[in-house]
């Protein structure tokens, strides 16, 4: 195997722009690849369900431009995973369009572009389930059935390293991948260079959030990862940051339930015997990782479906007596809704988010004796019909204004209205699928394309 050097300038391309200074330092450090992930399931079910990106295209283009120009100048491949937040076909097409546009704008010489779609039609999943195939529930969910699929509007399969390895073998200079496993986009070139599954996937896991594996905390700064025969090395490029055993180990457990195992289609990375060492002031080396291959290949399927339309209204409460009795006021308002529209949970749902009390933690908020000066209440109503959602939301909020509490002194209205309007919110979606299917061929769910971009 040969040593491979990878730079990663961002943990989620497009959310906010990459930082140029450390990226330039990374480019000067003789990387063999420039790689970044551009999507996440962290952003809620709306982007996948509605097939819209959550990032502003201005920053997506900014980062793609920096990465493409550097990659072409250095004549090294560039890989982007989970294009445009969702990794849907729309996302891949958008990034392919941006790459071509940037190439044209800068009159770049010809290069090979590979792009790989990973959306999977819900009908396809339905056929599989009906023919007896298992759509296995992850994280304690039951296996998916017709009912769950009926609630699913859009689904993606999460690709591992294989489709990307194929594209590299095909001579790709730029790879735009649909939804992909974050570590896999880094593992792919390392596996091609002969590194072990353990080192390839560990390197990917350490690098995929860029500077989050360094300290002090910084986002959007570049890191350099190296896979060598004797382990994985991670270096922070920003002058004020360093990768330490603690910072890299902390990152290994970030956003995960289990700090010792990372599951990918082929099996799992076992980090329980990892040894972290500081080898220079900015670099940590990690050894001891192993890989346990499964006897089957499981591909994760993520799916989202629309649930209802939503409306919001914001009110403030300043009367201390009303604040003390806010739940009674809300119950009174709900009673009024029930009279006209039936109880909540029927044709509509209503949520009173009480900022100042327990809006952020809900039922988990510990009881307190403290009382805030004021409450900000965001009234949220969901309903199949958008117009009805607005109507119900309007009076769900206005009834706080008219709430009848005994001993109330403020008889001209018990809520402060900042802006007398119902806000039409995005529709409510739900993560319907967090499942996996077994495949014989890890390439079978993904659709690769290839072209030469000439400007």
């Amino acid at each position, binding site marked *: 195997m040969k040593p491979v050097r990878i730079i990663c300038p961002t943990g989620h391309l497009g959310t906010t722009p990459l930082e140029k200074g450390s990226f330039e330092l990374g480019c000067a450090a003789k990387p063999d690849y420039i790689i970044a992930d551009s999507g996440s399931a962290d952003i809620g079910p709306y982007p996948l369900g509605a097939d819209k990106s959550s990032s502003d295209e201005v920053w997506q283009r900014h980062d793609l431009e920096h990465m493409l120009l550097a990659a072409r100048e250095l004549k090294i491949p560039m890989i982007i995973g989970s294009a445009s937040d969702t990794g849907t076909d729309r996302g891949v097409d958008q990034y392919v369009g941006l790459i071509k546009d940037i190439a044209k704008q800068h009159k770049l010489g010809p290069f090979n572009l590979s792009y790989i779609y990973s959306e999977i039609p819900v009908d396809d999943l339905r056929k599989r389930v009906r023919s007896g195939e298992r759509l296995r529930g992850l994280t304690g969910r039951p296996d998916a059935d017709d009912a769950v699929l009926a609630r699913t509007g859009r689904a993606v399969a999460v690709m591992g390293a294989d489709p990307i390895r194929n594209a590299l073998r095909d001579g790709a200079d730029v790879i735009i991948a649909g939804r992909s496993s974050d570590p896999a986009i880094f593992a792919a070139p390392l596996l091609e260079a002969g590194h072990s599954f353990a080192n390839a996937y560990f390197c990917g896991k350490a690098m995929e959030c860029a500077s989050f594996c360094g300290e002090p905390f910084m986002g959007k700064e570049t890191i350099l990862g190296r896979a060598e025969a004797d382990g994985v090395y991670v270096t922070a490029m920003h002058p004020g940051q360093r990768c330490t055993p603690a910072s890299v180990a902390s990152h290994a457990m970030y956003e995960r339930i289990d700090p010792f195992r990372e599951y990918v289609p082929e099996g799992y990375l076992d980090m329980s015997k990892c040894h972290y060492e500081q080898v220079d002031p900015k670099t940590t080396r990690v050894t001891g990782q192993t890989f346990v291959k499964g006897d089957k290949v499981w591909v994760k399927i993520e799916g989202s479906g629309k649930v209802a339309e939503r409306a919001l209204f914001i009110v403030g409460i300043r009367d201390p007596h009303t604040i003390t009795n806010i739940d009674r006021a809300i119950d009174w308002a709900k009673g009024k809704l029930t009279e006209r529209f039936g109880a909540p949970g029927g044709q509509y749902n209503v949520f009173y988010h009480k900022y100042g009390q327990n809006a952020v933690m809900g039922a988990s908020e510990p009881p307190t004796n403290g009382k805030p000066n004021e409450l900000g209440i965001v009234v949220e109503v969901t309903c199949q019909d958008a117009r009805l959602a607005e109507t119900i939301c309007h009076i769900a909020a206005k009834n706080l204004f008219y709430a009848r509490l005994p001993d109330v002194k403020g008889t001209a209205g018990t809520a402060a209205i900042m802006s007398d309007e119902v806000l039409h919110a995005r529709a409510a979606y739900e*993560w319907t699928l967090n499942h996996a299917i077994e495949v014989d061929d890890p390439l079978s769910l993904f659709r690769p394309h290839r072209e030469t971009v000439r400007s």
Partner: protein
Amino acid sequence: MKLVELASTIRSKNAGVDHITFDIICSDKANYERVKSSGALTKQSVAQLFRVSEDRIASFVVFEPAQAIKFTIRREMPSGCQGETDMFGSQQYAPLFDVEIP
């Protein structure tokens, strides 16, 4: 002493769409050993602190390389459903600050 005085990091974040994971990191070794051996943080104690049934504590792990205690709570609903209070699960950790460490 309160946990907030001994820990260098106390954070929460989504771990996938169905869980919120909590990390308590003590960069100071002595503090870490004190918190670890105190018995103040257990599956039962965090279930009580967050007012959830114990079966919603999906995992409770001591992670030596980061000098961390990590536990994970299963969400009642997947992230981003109607009525969501914290899409990223990133502001759920405050009750840990006041945990008394003997």
